């Protein structure tokens, strides 16, 4: 338990709470989370073409409470649909770090698993799990809408059982993920988000949160520039 001001904050660590009523309450929260997943409207690759059929009147994801959402701050699931080139991966990581916890990542198509048929390519990032924690993979090139929906059902089950803990992993092992990102983008890679501060907030800062790679980050980190404001009088 940590405190912000004098408001106690429940931790993300899965300790059984002593009050049985609190357990029931936690289950209720997880039940609600699993039934209103908003997914981010970001078409990263060719797998995005099977999302409109899965969302619209034939296969209809909305009956499961899954809706497309336009901003990362309102979304719960990040769908990485297909190959991510290095240029896209920077945006995907920035988008992922802007989302509110708890957040989940689904890797759709074979390209996110091991590079798919672009494993020889010089421009794509091969294994998505090295750069961000993936909760569910859906293989296929490209998977049918039924497969997409079945993967989302799997994620719903995992959320209800408290098994979908990818976002906690990102805070706890941030140094590993940052190391892989730096390997790909260079040592001066940074996003304007503050992951270590957030890990402190959720009380998830572990042994592997900070390490050699976060030290490199601190060396290069420049404070944000003042935001220019233009007002017409």
């Amino acid at each position: 338990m940590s405190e912000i001001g004098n408001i106690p904050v429940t931790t993300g660590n899965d300790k059984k709470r002593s009050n049985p009523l609190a357990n029931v309450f936690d289950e209720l929260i997880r039940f609600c989370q699993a039934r209103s997943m908003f997914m981010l409207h970001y078409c990263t690759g060719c797998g995005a073409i099977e999302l409109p059929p899965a969302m619209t009147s034939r296969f209809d994801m909305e009956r499961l409470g899954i809706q497309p959402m336009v901003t990362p701050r309102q979304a719960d699931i990040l769908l990485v649909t297909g190959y991510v080139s290095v240029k896209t991966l920077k945006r995907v990581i920035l988008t992922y770090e802007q989302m509110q916890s708890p957040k989940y990542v689904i890797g759709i198509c074979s390209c996110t698993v091991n590079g798919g048929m672009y494993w020889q390519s010089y421009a794509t990032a091969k294994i998505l799990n090295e750069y961000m924690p993936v909760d569910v993979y859906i293989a296929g090139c490209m998977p049918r809408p039924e497969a997409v929906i079945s993967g989302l059902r799997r994620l719903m089950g995992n959320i209800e059982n408290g098994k979908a803990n990818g976002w906690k992993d990102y805070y706890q092992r941030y140094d590993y993920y940052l190391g892989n990102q730096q390997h790909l983008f260079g040592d001066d890679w940074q996003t304007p988000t503050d992951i270590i501060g957030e890990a402190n907030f959720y009380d998830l800062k572990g042994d592997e949160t900070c390490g050699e790679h976060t030290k490199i980050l601190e060396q290069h980190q420049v404070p944000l520039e003042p935001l220019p404001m233009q007002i017409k009088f």
Partner: protein
Amino acid sequence: MRPENYQAVSLPCSNEYELFIGPNHPGIEGNYAFKLKLDGDRVLSGKADAGYLHRGFEKLMEGRLWIQNLAIVPRICVPDPVPMEVVYSLSVEAIENTEVPERAQWIRVMQLELSRVASHLFTFGGHAATTGMYTPSFWGVADRDLALDLFEELTGGRVYHIYNIPGGVRRDIPDGFLDRLSQYLDYLESRQNDYDNLLFTNLVFVKRARDIGCLNQENALEWGVTGPNLRATGLAFDVRRDDPYLIYDKLDFDIPVQTAGDCLARILVRRDELFQSVRILRQIIKHLPSVKGPVRTPIPNPLAWNVKAGESYSRVESSKGELAYYTVSDGGDMPYRVHVRGPSSMHAVQVLENMSVGERIEDIAQIMFSLDACPPEVDR
């Protein structure tokens, strides 16, 4: 991003600002970005920022066998993958001087037109959604799904059906396929009135789309515009009629033309083209049973297939415009160089940049969708 990290600074008064649309934006088709410089809500200049989908496609093809390349070819344009397979097969056949059996040619044209129907239905939905109308996009995707069912029956895949190979197609059509295709066409024609009432003659849509993103014929020819976007400026040029490939010279179809050159003209050309495709498919249903013969000429062992040295430039009319492959073979088992001339690489970059100047910010998404560009084709 914590609030204590930044502080406001005042600058001299100005109406000008920069806006970055995409790549994570619902008004952008696919993974693509567009930087705008605005004065109030008028666009002063736009800069396209592509390359998010670049996977070194042309380089990848140089490292794979001729037959292996068939698997990655359809990934270039996702909503309309069949022309990619066909034009790659055509370019290999042109180097090898292979004779394609007539039945295979008819089946190829059937696939091309069915794919055009699917792609246009998808485009209507996207275009209407940018003006806030979501019903056409639900209808369009649902009707497209029926076409994908037919593809699945024919080829086994919904979107990526690696069905055409150099020398013909993989296998013959299944029993009763033409009946089911005919039923689908009946259904599409019965929907024509509904689509017209909902979208193409709907005043809410027409008033938004008219006089937006105008393109004149002179500029269109200069900038390399092809396909429906060129036909919307009043020039009836179509590769299917003017440089016929496969069996298009035996078919009877019109080339829809509009003269206004704005967003409305572009979508109306696509609407007419959809029903011309239905007309072509009807002729194919009538003629295909009487064309007998094999569906492919045998090729040598594909794992050790050395295509003759030579080069070829083959083009087809895809639903986006003129699609061409420039293929060079040095006599080896892999291509020496393959260049893809995607129509969208002109539409999405220089045409969009020039066209968006002076438009209002709420129309940018509509202009982008009306050009029907396909970002993977730009990046390859």
